[in-house]
């Protein structure tokens, strides 16, 4: 309920100061041509001249109208300037002459006019700006369809679009005068030929001048003028810091209560707001009385407020001692102009006693229009009350009161020798006041009655009878009863206000405690559980928290272990998750459920959904508890958001830790396996130098294989972990192939290598290490499966849109139809398994690496069916465009 700032800001003063040396602009605004704007302007100009002001006509289009022309006769007219344009001579307002002449007031017709190209400004309104800047006041005219912001609107119903527009800002600083004649009269003038129309546009204009169009235009003009007045008035109020409610733009406030007709009230307010294009607010004043309402009434208030929200109202609860007070405060703060209230069907007696709420509102909110609507269907004259301390009081209250009266009586008897009769009556005030303040009105009345009876019986002569002789004593009895009534009412009000304060203190304490508990927890589930428990305890209901997971919403925590969500509940919760708005019982959506679901939102995201329900399936929450609940939800959402952020950071940490571990493992495996292999290989090679033994060859070969296997295992780990870090650089395939051939020379022993790699191939963008491993494995694979002594070909070909590198062997080839399977991890096709060594990892690594680099890999049987072809395809984007240059 933020009221617009009503104190003038420094900018306001500056703006005003800047405008002080400037000329003033007055615009005669018309709905259509022919309404008499120019005439009006000239008349007013003439009046000013008569009043001794220096007036000059800058430009006026009389369109040959006699009355208009007559008006210009008495005026000094600055001659127009001839402007040559496309072989013709056009006349324009002579701005320089006008500035030179420097009158106090210049009359400049047709503000929206477009100047002849070559003029100083393209638009006449810019000329006018210059005049104003020079300190010359200006009168001008404009039609509503020339106003920029309304241009579309006008075109939409007149189907005539004008290109000459005036910015709204020009209007905003001007004083507007609407020149208005009824549409019928205008049409009449049109028929009489009094309205100027360019001949070429006559058909369009005929349509333009239909009655409905003119009415609409007129309404627009009037409304625009009113709007401008509004804005200026706001400036005025600000500049002069006037207090009080100023009827500017309308703001509508509707007061809702628990009575059955309140929906009608809200709809009525909506209609008023629509008619006035005004924002509106539905207000519920929380008074001590509303705190005593039953669940049924609270549900009704919630429904009404929901309805208002749906109809576009802002909704607010205002705590106050009385409805009138609350409304008065809110209406003034929000600068409401219209107040919609319902007339409750109260008894005449009630109104006589308390005065009508409406009467007091009208009296206390001057300047606000109060709409009074009958509350339809509000037959129940008084809502059922559900007092915490029942109206009739408690039995113990009566017992205590009786005891107190008896005590006072006996004390009075005991002290009768020193007390006068009147003072004894004073003694009886004690139980009356005590009973009224402690136990409420009825008990207080009972105390008063009992006291007066006891006083009468025991003390008033004739003693021990209930007859009263002295009329003076009747006064004592009346006083006792009166005190009972006044005291009980006073105390009950004080108590209600204390209740109000206590409630808000309790809310604050609850919020603080809640927050403390949530911040102390570091685990998401714990937080969810704490939220459920706290909310369940605070409001005495069942609570559940659902969070979105891949499979949908899942119950994260619940106050009762046996909480189960049925399809309907899940649907409602899902709706909340998706829309971020409440759903379920007591909301506007999916109300059939026993549960009410509220979103836990932070940073615009729904983090979780809270569901609440009563054990007995009644309404989950009273309307007066909603603010506290939403406060708690905000806190809960923040707590969850904090955890989410923390978890995110932990995730990053753990990924980093995992990467570090993997790197450590890989390097240690690499090192620990390689080192002994190196010794074996080198040792065998040294021995080989001295003796030639087939076993030595075997040792070398197997050690090499083991070495390759270790490499492959390490590579595979990297592929599977999805943790390939690519270091892509332009690579010459010649280098790559040569390196791979060099590194596989042992496993390819016995095979000759045919290199068919043209020297003019483009460079390719690959990670050299990964690509090397691809080639090693392809060559290794070829060496393993090719028939002994057959050549292995490495062929690179540039094709359209790609480059293909194939490794071709001669051997048993691949079983038809199973070409794809060869790339699966640990797959060695049975048909081709010739008990050669191999782990089946190699080709899977080829595939993994190749795809990581953006290549594709395929296997096929040779066309002559005498071997297999493995092809790596480099798509166009991996090829480096030949530039021919090598830089300087």
């Amino acid at each position, binding site marked *: 309920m933020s009221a617009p700032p009503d104190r003038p800001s420094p900018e306001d003063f500056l703006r005003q100061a800047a405008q002080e040396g400037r000329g003033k602009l007055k615009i005669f605004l018309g709905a259509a041509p022919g309404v008499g704007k120019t005439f009006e302007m000239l008349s007013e100009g003439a009046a000013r001249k008569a009043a001794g002001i220096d007036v000059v006509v800058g430009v006026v289009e009389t369109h040959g109208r006699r009355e208009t022309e007559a008006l210009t006769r008495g005026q000094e007219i600055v001659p127009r300037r001839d402007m040559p344009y496309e072989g013709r001579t056009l006349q324009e307002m002579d701005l320089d002459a006008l500035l030179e002449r420097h009158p106090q007031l210049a009359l400049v017709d047709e503000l929206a006019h477009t100047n002849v190209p070559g003029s100083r400004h393209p638009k006449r309104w810019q000329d006018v700006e210059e005049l104003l800047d020079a300190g010359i006041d200006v009168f001008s005219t404009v039609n509503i369809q020339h106003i920029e912001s309304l241009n579309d609107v006008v075109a939409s119903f007149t189907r005539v679009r004008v290109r000459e527009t005036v910015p709204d800002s020009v209007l905003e600083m001007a004083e507007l005068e609407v020149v208005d004649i009824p549409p019928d009269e205008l049409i009449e003038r049109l028929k009489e030929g009094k309205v100027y129309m360019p001949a070429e546009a006559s058909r369009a204009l005929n349509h333009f001048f239909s009655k409905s169009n003119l009415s609409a235009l007129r309404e627009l003009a009037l409304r625009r003028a009113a709007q401008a007045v509004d804005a200026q008035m706001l400036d005025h109020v600000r500049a002069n810091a006037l207090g009080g409610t100023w009827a500017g733009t309308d703001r509508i406030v509707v007061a809702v209560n628990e009575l059955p007709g309140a929906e009608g009230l809200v709809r009525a307010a909506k209609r008023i707001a629509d008619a006035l294009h005004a924002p509106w607010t539905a207000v519920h004043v929380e008074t001590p009385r509303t705190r005593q309402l039953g669940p049924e009434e609270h549900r009704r208030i919630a429904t009404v407020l929901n309805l208002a929200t749906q109809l576009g109202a802002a909704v607010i609860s205002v705590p106050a001692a009385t409805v009138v007070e609350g409304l008065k405060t809110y209406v003034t703060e929000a600068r409401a102009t219209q107040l919609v209230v319902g007339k409750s069907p109260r008894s005449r007696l009630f109104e006589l006693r308390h005065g009508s709420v409406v009467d007091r509102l009208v009296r206390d909110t001057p300047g606000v229009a109060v709409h009074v609507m009958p509350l339809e269907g509000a037959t129940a004259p008084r809502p059922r009350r559900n007092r915490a301390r029942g109206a009739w009081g408690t039995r113990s209250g009566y017992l205590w009161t009786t005891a107190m009266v008896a005590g006072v009586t006996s004390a009075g008897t005991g002290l009768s020798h020193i007390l006068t009769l009147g003072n004894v009556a004073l003694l009886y005030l004690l139980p009356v006041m005590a009973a009224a303040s402690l136990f409420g009105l009825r008990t207080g009345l009972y105390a008063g009655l009992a006291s007066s009876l006891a006083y009468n019986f025991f003390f008033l002569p004739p003693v021990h009878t209930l007859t009263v002789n002295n009329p003076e004593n009747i006064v004592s009895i009346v006083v006792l009863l009166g005190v009972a009534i006044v005291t009980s009412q006073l105390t009950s009000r004080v108590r209600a206000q204390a209740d109000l304060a206590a409630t808000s203190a309790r809310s604050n304490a609850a919020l603080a405690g809640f927050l403390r508990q949530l911040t102390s927890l570091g685990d998401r589930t714990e937080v969810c559980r704490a939220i459920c428990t706290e909310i369940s305890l605070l409001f005495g209901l069942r609570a559940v928290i659902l969070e979105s997971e891949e499979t949908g919403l899942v119950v994260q925590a619940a106050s009762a272990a046996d909480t189960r969500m049925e399809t309907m509940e899940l649907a409602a919760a899902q709706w909340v998750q998706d829309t971020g708005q409440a759903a379920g019982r007591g909301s506007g959506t999916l109300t059939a459920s026993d549960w009410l679901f509220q979103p836990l939102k932070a940073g615009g995201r729904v983090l979780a959904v809270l569901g609440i329900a009563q054990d007995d399936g009644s309404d989950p929450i009273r309307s007066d508890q909603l603010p506290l609940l939403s406060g708690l939800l905000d806190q809960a959402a923040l707590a969850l958001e904090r955890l989410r952020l923390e978890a995110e950071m932990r995730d990053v940490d753990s990924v980093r830790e995992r990467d570090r571990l993997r790197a450590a493992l890989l390097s240690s495996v690499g090192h620990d396996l390689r080192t002994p292999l190196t*010794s074996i290989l080198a040792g065998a090679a040294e021995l080989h130098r001295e003796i030639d033994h087939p076993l030595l060859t075997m040792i070398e070969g197997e050690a090499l294989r083991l070495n390759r296997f270790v490499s492959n295992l390490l590579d595979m780990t990297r592929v599977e972990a999805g943790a390939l870090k690519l270091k892509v650089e332009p*690579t010459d395939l*010649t280098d790559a192939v040569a390196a791979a051939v060099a590194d596989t020379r042992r496993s390819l022993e016995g095979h000759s290598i045919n290199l068919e790699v043209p020297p003019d191939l483009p460079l390719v963008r690959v990670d050299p290490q990964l690509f090397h491993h691809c080639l090693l494995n392809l060559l290794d694979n070829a060496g393993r499966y090719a028939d002994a002594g057959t050549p292995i070909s490495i062929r690179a070909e540039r094709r359209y849109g790609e480059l293909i590198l194939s490794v071709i062997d001669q051997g048993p080839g691949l079983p038809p139809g199973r070409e794809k399977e060869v790339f699966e991890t640990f797959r060695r096709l049975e048909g081709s398994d010739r008990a050669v060594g191999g782990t089946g990892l190699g080709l899977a690594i080829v595939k993994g690496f190749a795809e990581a680099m953006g290549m594709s890999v395929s296997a096929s049987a040779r066309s002559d069916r005498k071997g297999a072809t493995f092809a790596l395809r480099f798509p166009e984007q991996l090829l480096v465009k030949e530039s021919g240059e*090598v830089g*300087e």
Partner: protein
Amino acid sequence: MTGQRILVVDDELHIRRLLHGTLTRAAYEVIEAKTGREALALAASAHPDAILLDLGLPDRDGLELVPILLRQAKVPLLVISAREATDDKVAALDLGADDYVTKPFDGEELLARLRAALRSKVSAHGSEPIVSAGDLRIDLTNRIVTKGGTELHLTRKEFDVLGQLAMAPGRVVTHTRILAQAWPLETDRRIEYLRIVVRNLRQKLESDPASPKLIVNELGIGYRLMADA
């Protein structure tokens, strides 16, 4: 060139034993260090002529030892490391190491690299203006390249690159070093230019440009000119 003293730094007994065998067979004298600390002590006291350093040492990071050892001994240093550790090798070379061998290494290859490294120290004093590789002769002073006696026409960039390689015959020259010399101003597409120049060089120098024997690519590290020993 016998009697030169090689300091072998490796924590693995078998590797040391092996290197010992290979090196003594080639008439080098071998001293061994098991840890970084021992290596530093020996580098300072035993006056080795070259150092073979395994990067995976138990007590210290091998890379960190490279500059310290070089400062102490001012002799060629070769790094021994696993295949995958390209970054380590480049780092070691950038730190001043002369060359590297990859585990599992080949004895002959190791000796060839060691010889090349040792020679470079000699040539650093009395410079060696003419480098031969097969039938190729590169005259660094006069910027003339002949193949089988015929002079080849090389572009300026081609000679810049070849010259870089020829100044360290038989040793690896990192991309970074070549690029810094040949394309000092370019930052963007230098690797690409280098690849193209090398390809052009091979077309002119190699008997079979598809399987180069003279200018050899060292995966992810640099190029090596296979000069005559």
